Every structure is written in C-alpha cells, then in structure tokens.
C-alpha cells in the first residue's frame, strides 16, 4: 500500500456529488410525503438467504441481551416492514448495510442502500417512481433515452432465445456452451437457478441499461425472495431489478405479506443453508408477527447508492466513490 493510504480514495468532486445526491434524494421524498426513518443496524435475527452472509458479533452486556450473538443487517427490510405493519405509511431510509464475502470493483462489504416502501403501489407503479428518481438524479450528468421495461423471460428470449421459466439444466448447459460461457466446475445438475444466474451475469447484464434505464421484472418463482407470487403458468415472482450501463442498481418487490408463506420461505432457505454447510440463521420473529397482523399492500425497493454515485460521476469502481474504501477502513 502506498504511503498515502490515510488519504481519501475518492476525489473531492465525487465526495461533493455524494452529498448533493443525498440532499436531492431527501428533497424528492419530502416533496412526496414519504417519511425518513432509521432502524437498528444490529439485530438478533438475520437474513436466511444462502447467497447473503451476515457479519456477526457478540454483545457483552449489560441487559437481557448479554452474551447474545447479534448480526449487522444486510438491508433494513425487516424492521421497515414492522413499521409499515404498525401503520407508518410510506417510508424511506438511507442506511449503511453490511455483507460479508462481497468485495470487488462493484462490491464492498459495507455500502449505502437507499430503501423505500410505497403503500398501495405494485411493482410496476414503483418502477415508475424509481425511474423518476434515477432520472432526477442523473439527468444533469447523463443523457438517457426513455426507460425500458423487459420481463425476465423477454430478456432471455431476446439475448439467448431461451425460455428461462421452462428450460432444464441440460438446455441451459447447451446454451452456455454455445455462447462460449466458461462453465464453473461444480455447477449443480438439479438446480436451474445458478445456471440462470451464470447466463444472466455473463451474457445478458452487459446489454442492459445501455444509454437508458432498463428494468427487468417478473422473476422465476424460485428467485422471488421476498416478492409475492403471481399465479400464472408458470408462476412468477413480482420482483424487479434496475440496470444502467450493465450495472445492477436496484432490486424491488411487490411485497409478500403472507406470514405463513414467509415463514416457509425462511425455513426452506435455512434448510438450503444446512445442506450447504452454512450456519443456520435465527428467523426474525418480530417480522413474522408483524406480517401476521397485516402488512399493507405495498411495494419496496433497495437502491445501491454508491453504484449510483459511481455511474453519475462516470467512475468504474465503487472505491472511487468512497472517502475510505474497505481496504483503507
């Protein structure tokens, strides 16, 4: 490491842009009557998704939580839904979140999420608002064509001539080989999702968000996460992602409000963790209790703020947008 490692990594223009964008985000939501909230970063419960890894620490007291393992949140989603169930109405939060095992040009183990929930919106209406916010933040720095909306199926059909909801592992393997995608060793023979992820990241994402915002929506039910399912044949998860310059910027859901369904998804994810030798996570019983009382019909989205700053500033690495990147923290 160079002698100047104590110095900020980002230039002052980018740090001033960060502050300016935060100011404009707060003005955007204030004008729409969306309430800014703050929720705990440390929680007794953690996300069960086997692709996310939470940092854990132990509280040494005093109080009833003495000696308990606590987890740094990977997103503020669960406590924000408790607020919604308690009658908060529309809310947003700008939060530092933490994800172990994620580092690279566009990943940092600690980063800033802008997360917001709109009561009465479905995922399509929320996509409209995401486009309005992103356009308001980027318009003076980037020339963008009209936003584009593409279903997950349309994206696979357009770029790979393949139906992602019906393709088998064998068909996905042939497609990857034909596309010249390097196939990692140890890809599963029975689970299509890692194959879809491989093709999406290697052959579809680079085409998304070129010169415009691209929304990908209606994901396979197996990738619904916390989105509600729409009973079609085959069923789809009402989830969306936003891309610009091939970079994933946001992930949103028409939120699942069914406590029974949510518990069974958490348990299925923990079972997958157990099968992979990963630690099983404590379920967020507060969230499940809130859902049981009733989550208002709503849609929510989380937007990677550092990536937005990166694209607004014309940078190519997250480290260029942070005062002190992870390696210098």
């Amino acid at each position, binding site marked *: 490491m160079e002698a100047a490692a104590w110095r900020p990594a980002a230039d002052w223009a980018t740090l001033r842009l960060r502050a300016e964008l935060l100011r404009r985000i707060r003005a955007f939501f204030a004008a729409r009557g969306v309430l800014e909230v703050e929720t705990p970063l440390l929680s007794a419960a953690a996300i069960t*998704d086997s*692709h996310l890894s939470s940092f854990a620490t132990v509280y040494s007291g005093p109080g009833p939580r003495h000696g308990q393992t606590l987890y740094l949140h990977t997103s503020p989603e669960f406590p924000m839904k408790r607020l919604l169930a308690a009658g908060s109405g529309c809310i947003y939060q700008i939060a530092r979140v933490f994800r172990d*095992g*994620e*580092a*690279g*040009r*566009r*990943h940092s183990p600690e980063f800033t999420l802008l997360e917001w929930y709109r009561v009465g919106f479905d995922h399509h209406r929320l996509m409209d608002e995401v486009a309005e916010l992103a356009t308001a933040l980027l318009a003076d720095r980037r020339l963008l064509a009209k936003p584009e909306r593409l279903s997950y199926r349309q994206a696979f059909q357009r770029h790979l001539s393949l139906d992602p909801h019906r393709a088998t592992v064998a068909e996905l393997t042939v497609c990857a080989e034909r596309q010249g*995608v*390097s*196939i*990692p*060793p*140890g*890809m599963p023979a029975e689970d299509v*999702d*890692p194959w*879809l*992820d*491989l093709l*999406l*990241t*290697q052959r579809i*994402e680079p085409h998304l968000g070129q010169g415009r915002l691209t929304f990908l929506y209606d994901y396979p039910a197996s*990738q619904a*996460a916390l989105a509600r399912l729409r009973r079609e044949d085959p069923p789809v998860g009402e*989830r969306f*992602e936003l891309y610009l310059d091939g970079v*994933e910027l946001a*992930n949103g859901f028409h939120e699942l409000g069914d406590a029974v369904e949510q518990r069974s998804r958490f348990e299925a994810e923990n079972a997958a963790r157990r099968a992979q030798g990963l630690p099983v996570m404590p379920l967020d019983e507060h969230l499940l209790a809130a859902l049981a009382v009733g989550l208002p019909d709503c849609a929510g989205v989380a937007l990677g703020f550092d990536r937005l700053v990166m694209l607004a500033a014309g940078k190519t690495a997250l480290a260029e947008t942070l005062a002190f990147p992870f390696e210098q923290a």
Partner: protein
Amino acid sequence: MATYSTNEFKSGLKIMLDGDPYAIVENEFVKPGKGQAFNRVKVRNLKTGRTIERTFKSGDTAEGADVVDVELQYLYNDGEYWHFMDPQSYEQLTADAATVGDAAKWLKDEAICQVTLWNGVPLSVTPPIFVIMTIVETDPGLRGDTSGGGGKPATLETGAVVRVPLFVQSGEVIKVDTRTGDYVSRVKD
C-alpha cells in the same frame, strides 16, 4: 501443493487448470443481488502464454501450481538443448527450443537469466534486461554521420538483428534492451 479459495485469488497467483499451470492476470467478483456469486478470472497459460477467461463459483477452490522463478546461469547450447546452471548449487538444468523461445537470440555464455520452473522443470526463460554484444555484420554506413537518425540493421554474435545508428560499425560492442530489442549505446572497451 496448497489449494486456494476464490477469496484468495489475486493477480500473480499460480494455479492449475486442466493440467496446465496458469497465472491469474485479473480477478473480478460478479454477483447478482439475489443469486449465486461468481469469480470471473483472466488467466495466462504459463506454457503457451495464451490468456483465457474462466469462471468459478465464489468459495470454490483451485489447486496451486508449483511455479517458481529462479536465477540461472546460461552455459551453452548443444544444438538441441540449452544448458543452465544454478550458480549456488551447481545443479544443471536443460531447456528445449519451445521453452527458451525468443530468449534464445539473447543468450550468451554466462548470462544470468530468470528461468520459471514448474515442478522443477524449466517452463520459460527470460534473458537479462540488458545484454552486451559484438556486432558481427553491418553496412559501413556514412562516416561522419553522428545524428543517429535513420539507422541500419546490424547482426550480433548470437544471430540477433537490431537497428543501430549509422555511425556504429562491425566489430563494435553495443548494449541492447532485450525487452524491446532496441539499441541502447556503444560500449567502450
């Protein structure tokens, strides 16, 4: 040999792929927000020099390659093999034409070369950055032209051909940069 997790991947790390030793050139972490993470890696085959792209599931491992760089002294060429010696242990190693490659034209007796060994066997040879060689043949050129502009080809004692300024003559000793094949200067005895 050790195995390395994708978390330990960084440029320069030597790993085995399909039975060949590779050096990692570039390592990129790729992850969809809600899905499987991958490491997309550019690797250079240390036998062929070719660079290819490979993808790993993050958290998977690759076997390390036993590849080391050592300084060896060039001894001689017997017509088929190039012979080198470890100046400390006096152990001798031989390398064939494919291994020596382009370095052959810069090898002169007793030159200290960097030899890359894979499982103890030479994989590639890097000549010294600067070599001192005698010109065996070059056109006389114009006497009195010291501008250095233009230049002319000169054949060196090893057969290598470099461009030299017009004022440099046969029998003179010159210094050459082997990375570019460029003439650097005359060397006075």
